[in-house]
């Protein structure tokens, strides 16, 4: 059932020519072949590239020379304690903050040279929480994600896309409910649905599970994982829960005081040593049912 809807939502029928030409244009922009990688990943393109990014709030440096690459169809988690620059990094990528130094490029194109509207078609941003002083209906909130595509009104195609995404996210029962009449978890799902309605190639998520209960956490991350794999969307998400990040992401970027402390697959990054150094917490790292690391925190150092 899910698959049906995902096919329906498939972007093949939506400016596919545009997308294909872009792909051809930048065929040369592939990730460098690592001599030791088994040759399996070597032709996966780099989708999002962050080079030497630095950002200051007033004179306080928040990001220092951050380098991250996110490949196509890859789910990358940004981990790090509060104030390590996760949210700032996401906001820099989406153009809400102007970085002091360094560059961000998507498919080899610098985002600063793109129009806001075109960038909004590539990047779907999910904020930590929504302001809702004057709440609209859930349907209208998701429809906001179609704004880069439509002019003044909303066409039939936009409504179709929104209906399908609402179904996919399991929000169909609350379509017409007011945005402030739903739970925090449902609100989070609506924000993700809004980002999906943008039909983005990259999803930026700022702590997508922070307001959710156990079941919704797994549910939301599973949906994001499926979108990433089936639609070849790349996802970069700031996370607080080490175990969820370890279970669901392909790679992990560990930030410490605005610098990249370590990058790699969950097994190599989530270790007792790195947790002690970055979080200042004594922890045991075991293996979960999927062979991924599982953290049991013991005490703050």
């Amino acid at each position, binding site marked *: *059932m899910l698959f*049906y*809807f995902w096919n329906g939502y498939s972007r093949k029928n939506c400016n596919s020519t545009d997308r294909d030409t872009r792909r051809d244009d930048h065929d040369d922009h592939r990730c460098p072949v690592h001599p030791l990688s088994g040759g399996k990943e070597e032709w996966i393109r780099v989708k999002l590239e962050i080079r030497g990014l630095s950002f200051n709030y007033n004179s306080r440096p928040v990001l220092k020379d951050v380098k991250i690459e996110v490949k196509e169809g890859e789910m990358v988690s940004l981990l790090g304690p509060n104030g390590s620059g996760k949210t700032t990094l996401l*906001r820099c990528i*989406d*153009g*809400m903050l102007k970085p002091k130094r360094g560059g961000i490029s998507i498919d080899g194109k610098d985002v600063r040279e793109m*129009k*806001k*509207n*075109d*960038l*909004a*078609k590539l*990047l*779907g*941003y999910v*904020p930590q929480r*929504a*302001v*809702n*002083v*004057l*709440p*609209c*209906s859930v*349907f*209208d*909130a998701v429809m*906001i*994600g179609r*704004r*880069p595509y439509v002019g*003044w009104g909303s066409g039939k195609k936009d*409504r179709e896309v929104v*209906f*399908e995404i*609402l*179904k996919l996210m399991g929000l*169909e029962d609350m*379509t*017409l409910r*007011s*945005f402030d009449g739903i739970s925090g978890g449902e609100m989070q799902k609506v*924000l993700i649905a*809004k*980002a999906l309605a*943008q039909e983005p190639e990259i999803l930026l998520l700022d702590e997508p599970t922070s307001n959710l209960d156990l079941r919704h956490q797994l549910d939301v991350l599973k949906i994001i994982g499926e979108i990433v794999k089936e639609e070849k969307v790349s996802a970069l998400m700031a996370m607080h829960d080490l175990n969820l990040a370890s279970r669901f992401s392909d790679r992990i970027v560990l930030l410490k005081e605005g610098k990249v402390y370590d990058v790699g697959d969950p097994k190599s990054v989530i270790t007792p040593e790195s947790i002690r150094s970055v979080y200042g917490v004594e922890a045991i790292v075991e293996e979960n049912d999927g062979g991924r690391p599982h953290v049991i925190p013991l005490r703050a150092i």
Partner: protein
Amino acid sequence: MNIHEIKGEIEERYAKYTARKFGILFALLTSLVILAILVTPLGAASLSIGEVFHAIFSRGSSRADIIIWQLRLPRILMAIICGMGLALSGAVVQGVLHNPLASPFTLGVSSAAFFGGMIGGAFGVGMGLNVGFAFFFGMLALFLIYGISKRRGMTPETVILCGICLMYLFLALTSVAGMMGGAIGMSQILSGFLVSSSWESVLTTAIFLIITFPLLMWCARDLNAMALGDDTATSVGINVNRTRMISMVLATLIVSAIVCFTGVIGFVCLISPFIARSVMGNDHRFIFPSSALIGALLLLERILSQELQFNR
């Protein structure tokens, strides 16, 4: 249940939901027309409905014709335009500031604009200059409030308190200027005056309303997105600051044009968007027209109750 059925059901419910909103808009429009027809025969000189219709369509020089064309029609049209414009600008200001208590009246914009209009009037050049001065002072008040609230991170309630301070400041200035010039009394300043409307004022304000309304409707969608937070709006490609600026300038423009002719009419711009929100939800594309219609209805209703009170 079949997937198609579920989807069809959502679509159907959404269609109904939208149809209901259009239905309310239509009902508001109809009641506006009916109320306008009901109000026209009322006034100091008692005219029958038949006389009124005859006067409207024949436009001769009889007593009834003159009363209708020179007194009643301008006043009724002015009430409609003025109610629409003020209510619309109230809805815009609330949407931009995310503050359901905000309105040109409670932020002091109306009284600042009125003060400006009076200063402009003192030069005696013409209505264009009046509106220009009113606009300048209105923007000044709005930016003062907006700037302070941004810089100090004020809560919505504090913003309104500051606005009310500004409102009284400008009302005081206006009354001083008014007393020195001897032009108008304080009671008129505070309650607004629709009685002395002329065709000139109707036309001028109508032009401002006709220009600004479509532009504001064009901003409505972006304001919807901004209601979910600036981050969300920016991420779908909206230039948040530009949209905010455009809609505030347009809202102040309507208010200034209206205030120059009618004085400060307070309640419409605060109450109409409120009523509109309670029946329409918070979609600005529907709030703007419905709020405008409700504003016009409220002012017409005010004329109606005045006439019923004094002339029966």
